[in-house]
């Protein structure tokens, strides 16, 4: 059980505090309710580029990292489709420096042309390193526009075209800041060696005077239901052919979420998952195979991806994946396997929540979903999934008309 307290500042900033005296550190997490889904289609990758700019100094702190390192702190951040999340850990005696730095960059950034120009280059190198210079790196770039035709999830967080990154200017940066970075669009979580009263006092002191800002109402086009199977073949000079299959699912808060999460664990949770057991170990069709949910806030995807063994026919590989999924409809062996993935989920939740950083990030994200108490309810929700709901979900989601497939064909001739 993770105990926490929540309060709301007058300017709309939501604050969550969890005390854990077993550590000398404090974790501070700030989630901004802005991600790549909030981007203009002609300026994709902007939310992530902006995350880089957040380290280039703010009005009263010329540099973010150095003062934090000076007090023994360490930090990082990530951007995804839905959120931009900043986090740091700091020895508790110096937590006030964390408040100073985070509140100052919420107050106002030091918008500098030099920093913008440089971070554009860094982001382009990041794009090259992660997507272009890796075998199979572009598969995910192709997958999004295949699965989404309208919704902004159709582009990746890094951006769909590096020209968008190159073309941004300082005016756009300022506009983005003032329309998304604001106390009333953020969630602050503090976990670790901090008392509630101090957390409240410091939050009030450093963040309390930042004024509310006008946040544009989010009005995203919803993705029309897919009615026909979509398939794309790509040829590449890679060592093995790879198969990617995705199915549309509902939003993070839909009642099917835990059922679908459990299905991916039956399929691919640990070495004993069905896809691995049947297709890697028994039939030797794949060298590796995995299944997971995107866990996006808006309707997301289930992704199954695997690399084929040499000489395996891709039609056979694909057919076998579908057979394994449909195998979950049968009662054979399912009771023990359901119990197994539930135990594993419980165990991994306990382990995840030993880290103050994870607790801070989870509290923030669940607050965004509307209820930080979810941090203590997830195991319960997952445990409640029945085989009937698994059957029902498989029949509704895992159908060809709801599926997109990428066949990533190796053109390499092997000796």
């Amino acid at each position, binding site marked *: 059980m993770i105990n926490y307290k929540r309060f709301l500042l007058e300017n709309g900033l939501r604050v969550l505090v969890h005390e854990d005296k077993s550590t000398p550190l404090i974790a501070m997490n700030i989630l901004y309710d802005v991600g790549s889904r909030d981007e203009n289609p002609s300026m994709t990758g902007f939310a992530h580029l902006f995350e880089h700019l957040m380290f280039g100094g703010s009005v009263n702190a010329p540099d973010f990292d150095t003062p934090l390192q000076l007090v023994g*702190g360490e930090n990082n951040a990530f951007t995804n489709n839905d959120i931009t999340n900043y986090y740091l850990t700091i020895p508790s*005696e110096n937590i006030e*420096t964390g408040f100073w730095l985070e509140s100052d960059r919420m107050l106002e950034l030091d918008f500098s042309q030099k920093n913008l120009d*440089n971070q554009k280059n860094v982001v382009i*190198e990041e794009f090259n390193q992660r997507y272009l210079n890796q075998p199979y790196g572009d598969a995910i770039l192709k997958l999004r526009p295949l699965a989404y035709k309208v919704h902004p999830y159709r582009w990746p967080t890094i951006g769909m075209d590096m020209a968008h990154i190159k073309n941004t200017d300082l005016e756009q940066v300022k506009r983005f800041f003032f329309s998304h970075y604001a106390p009333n669009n953020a969630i602050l979580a503090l976990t670790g060696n901090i008392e509630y009263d101090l957390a409240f006092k410091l939050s009030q002191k450093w963040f309390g005077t930042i004024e509310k800002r006008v946040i544009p109402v989010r009005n995203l086009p919803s993705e029309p239901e897919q009615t026909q199977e979509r398939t794309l073949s790509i040829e590449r000079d890679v060592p093995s052919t790879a198969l990617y299959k995705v199915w549309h699912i509902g939003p993070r808060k839909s009642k099917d979420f835990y059922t679908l999460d459990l299905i991916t664990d039956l399929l691919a949770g640990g070495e004993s998952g069905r896809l691995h057991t049947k297709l890697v170990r028994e039939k030797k069709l794949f060298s590796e195979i995995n299944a997971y949910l995107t866990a996006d806030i808006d309707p997301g995807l289930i992704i199954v991806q695997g690399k084929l063994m040499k000489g395996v026919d891709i039609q056979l590989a694909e057919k076998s994946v579908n057979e394994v999924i449909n195998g979950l409809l049968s009662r054979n062996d399912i009771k023990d396997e359901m119990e*197994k993935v539930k*135990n594993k989920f419980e165990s991994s939740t306990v382990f995840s929540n*030993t880290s103050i950083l994870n607790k801070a990030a989870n509290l923030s994200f669940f607050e965004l979903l509307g209820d930080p108490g979810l941090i203590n309810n997830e195991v319960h929700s997952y445990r409640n999934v029945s085989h009937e709901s698994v059957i029902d979900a498989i029949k509704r989601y895992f159908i060809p008309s709801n599926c997109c497939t990428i066949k990533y064909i190796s053109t390499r001739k092997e000796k």
Partner: protein
Amino acid sequence: MMNNLLRVQPPVFPVEKVVIPEAKSLKLNNGVPAYLIEAGTEDIMRLEFIFKAGQVKEYLPLLSSTCNMMLSEGSQNYSSEELNRLLDYYGIFLNQSAEKDSAGIVLFFLNKHIEKVLELSREILFRPVFPEPELNSLMKKRLRWYLVNREKVQNLAMDQFFESLFGKNHPYGYQITEQDFENISPSRLKDFHSKYYNPEKMAVIISGKIHSRTTELLDLYFGNAGSGEIKKEDPVNFLRGGKLKKVHINKSGTVQNAIRIGSVTINKRHTDYPGLKVVDTILGGYFGSRLMKNIREEKGYTYGVSSSLTSLDLSGYKVISTEVGQKNNQKAIEEIYKEIRLLQNVPVEKEEMAVIRNYMSGEMVRMFDGPFALAESFRSAWEFGLDNGYYYRLAEKIKTIEPDEIIELARTYYDVDDLYEITVGAE
């Protein structure tokens, strides 16, 4: 008052001196050493079994890593499927690893399952049967993983770096080839296992909220094990670096080059090591390092650049790593050498000294925060025959090192003529 808040950095407090809980050291009935570190608030434990069974012991490439991976592929009492299913059923996380010097397994679990964990660990460690079908299947899979990994410039660069430093004939240095995947047989694995996964040569590290019956159960499952014979360890080959200091590997179709620059250096056992650790951190060991500031934050040549020090039983190495756009390859390399020369010739300023001292002190707090970090830190000193005294010396050095000593260490250990320079990418 609040409206007049002065938005300047609040008072900076020196990071409190790190206090490291001592591990409780004991011996099982058969003399196997076990170390218990009590920490954490949840009823969970981390259990590690370590053997001197790393690559350095192998007489054939892939022998050490394959032996380690095959431990969970079937035992006297369980098939591989049964083992994997049971581990998952009890929510146990099993990590198997074979490094350059040591190999072993780590298990994470809820305390209530301790007895099951010990029973399965004994099967995995001391009763593996190395079935041939599983071995063949594993080697085919590994070959596929290997082929994919060899597409990545960073892997090609690192493999070449080790070959350049330690030589083509030493397990620290040789590169894997496709042919190597055909040379591993069950009998070779059994031979390797009997020599190096020997109860007498094992150590156990346990951390977490330690179950009250831990010692008793360890004795029950492992306290009687013994081979009855202490086998002589294999002699070790010479370490001999390559003559060529600069190696470029052409990899067409790439958009970035991988760069690795470094050389053999002292390990943790050397008295200069704590000071060298400070020098390395200034150069490239954290986000605010000189290399990051220069090559990423000033010039935008890369998404990341770092340097690191690694200790090995017979040696040690330092390496600077980055991936850069091809047009900036040469410029990035020049900046790396420039930063090394600056460290050798210009005293570090007071402000940077304060940042590095406090940042590294904060890192030390993080290194001992919680049961998992504690166990890893304990292990990485223990493996070199060191105890917490090593960390206290490091903490002291972080607080007291002066700019003169940094210059001296940089001159001694970053001799530019000694450095190997490996690049991989399109020409």
